[in-house]
């Protein structure tokens, strides 16, 4: 009977002890794991949606090869010096001005970037999250390209009449590859012919390019959520302002037995 008296409190104490030391922590852990599972499931669902959106983007790219070409001509993947020389030479030739010199500097990144991507680890590894600049608000505040856009200067000296020099400048402003005249100098005294109508034009022109993305580090870019490129306004502007020369260079035949022969 005495043992029986002890059993009830013993069971109750054991129950309370098991509840406090085992059941409650296990229940808390269980609840956390449930949340973790839910989070993991959401992540999988999210990446699946983004994969679907990426396929849509890929289709859009394939369907709009003209737009793609326009953008890649405007801001190419590499410096393409030959293209720059071709543009300058073609414009000068089309206006009948004589070229005295053309030189191209080595590329450099812009010194004053307006925004740097948060995960960016260099020009070749643009982060997906870093480019949430897709938003109009972010872009509205920026007036210079980011540090990822490489910049180099081409210099050119030509001589010709004032009207033709004007045309050269006008055509440069309209080439399909982006360029911006930094320094312009028109000089009456520099011409060798001493002809009053012949002027010399010296230009320093900024050209840019953007290296191709080599890695995608995160999913947090707006395009992977929206599934479409924010293209319309850019194409409209390019069609409006960039109607000029586009380089379509072809090296032609090559090879000779004596490279020193003219």
């Amino acid at each position, binding site marked *: 009977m005495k043992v029986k008296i002890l059993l009830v409190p013993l069971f109750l104490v054991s129950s309370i002890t098991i509840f406090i030391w085992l059941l409650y922590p296990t229940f808390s852990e*269980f609840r956390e794991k449930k949340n973790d599972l839910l989070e993991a499931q959401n992540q999988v669902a999210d990446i699946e949606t983004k994969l679907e959106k990426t396929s849509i983007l890929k289709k859009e790219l394939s369907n709009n090869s003209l737009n793609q070409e326009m953008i890649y001509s405007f801001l190419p993947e590499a410096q393409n010096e030959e293209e720059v020389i071709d543009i300058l030479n073609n414009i000068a030739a089309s206006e009948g001005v004589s070229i005295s010199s053309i030189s191209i500097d080595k590329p450099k990144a812009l010194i004053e970037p307006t925004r740097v991507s948060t995960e960016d680890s260099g020009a070749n590894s643009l982060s*997906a999250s870093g480019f949430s600049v897709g938003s109009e608000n972010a*872009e509205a505040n920026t007036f210079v390209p980011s540090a990822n856009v490489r910049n180099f200067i081409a210099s050119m000296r030509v001589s010709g009449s004032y009207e033709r020099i004007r045309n050269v400048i006008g055509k440069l402003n309209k080439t399909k590859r982006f360029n911006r005249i930094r320094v312009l100098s028109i000089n009456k005294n520099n011409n060798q012919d001493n002809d009053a109508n012949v002027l010399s034009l010296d230009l320093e022109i900024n050209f840019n390019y953007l290296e191709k993305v080599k890695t995608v580090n995160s999913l947090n870019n707006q395009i992977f959520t929206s599934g479409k490129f924010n293209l319309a306004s850019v194409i409209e502007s390019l069609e409006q302002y960039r109607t000029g020369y586009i380089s379509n260079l072809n090296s032609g035949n090559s090879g000779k037995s004596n490279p020193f022969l003219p």
Partner: protein
Amino acid sequence: MSINLKTNSSNNNQEKINFGKALPFAVIILVLILIAYFALAYYSKKIDAQIIGEQEIYSQKMEEFKKGDAKEALDFQNRISESKNLLLQYENNLDLLDEIQKYILPEVYLVKISADFDSNEINLDCRTTNYDYVSKQILSFKNSAFFSKVEAGDSNIVAQEEKVNFKLVLSIKK
């Protein structure tokens, strides 16, 4: 002297009643707690396995994402964004020449124009026949809304040619 009114038999009955009811409840509570504990432990392990499964799926999908079309799409979007920024820098340099053509006096002609579009500073080397036209030319450029500042630079008379050389520094209004 105290009198005990309770009998032994009535005490025994009370004990039997109390423990007879409480003991099964105590056992049931303990058993239920144990069952709940083992059930939770079992489902926790199951959830662990599910989390690992989801993480593996996520890793696979992420690899697929990185190696797939995302790079190309991102590259194109970056190019669009940067092109927008570049388009904001668009300048028609002929506007400057148009403005100079519009405001230059017939009696004055240019020898040199140097324009730095980064600093928006324009240096003009001009030539005319007398200082009257120098002052009029400065005033003429000041009438243009295109320029925010017009400053007179050095000037000198070339006696042989009977001309006045003068410099002007203009700033483009932004």
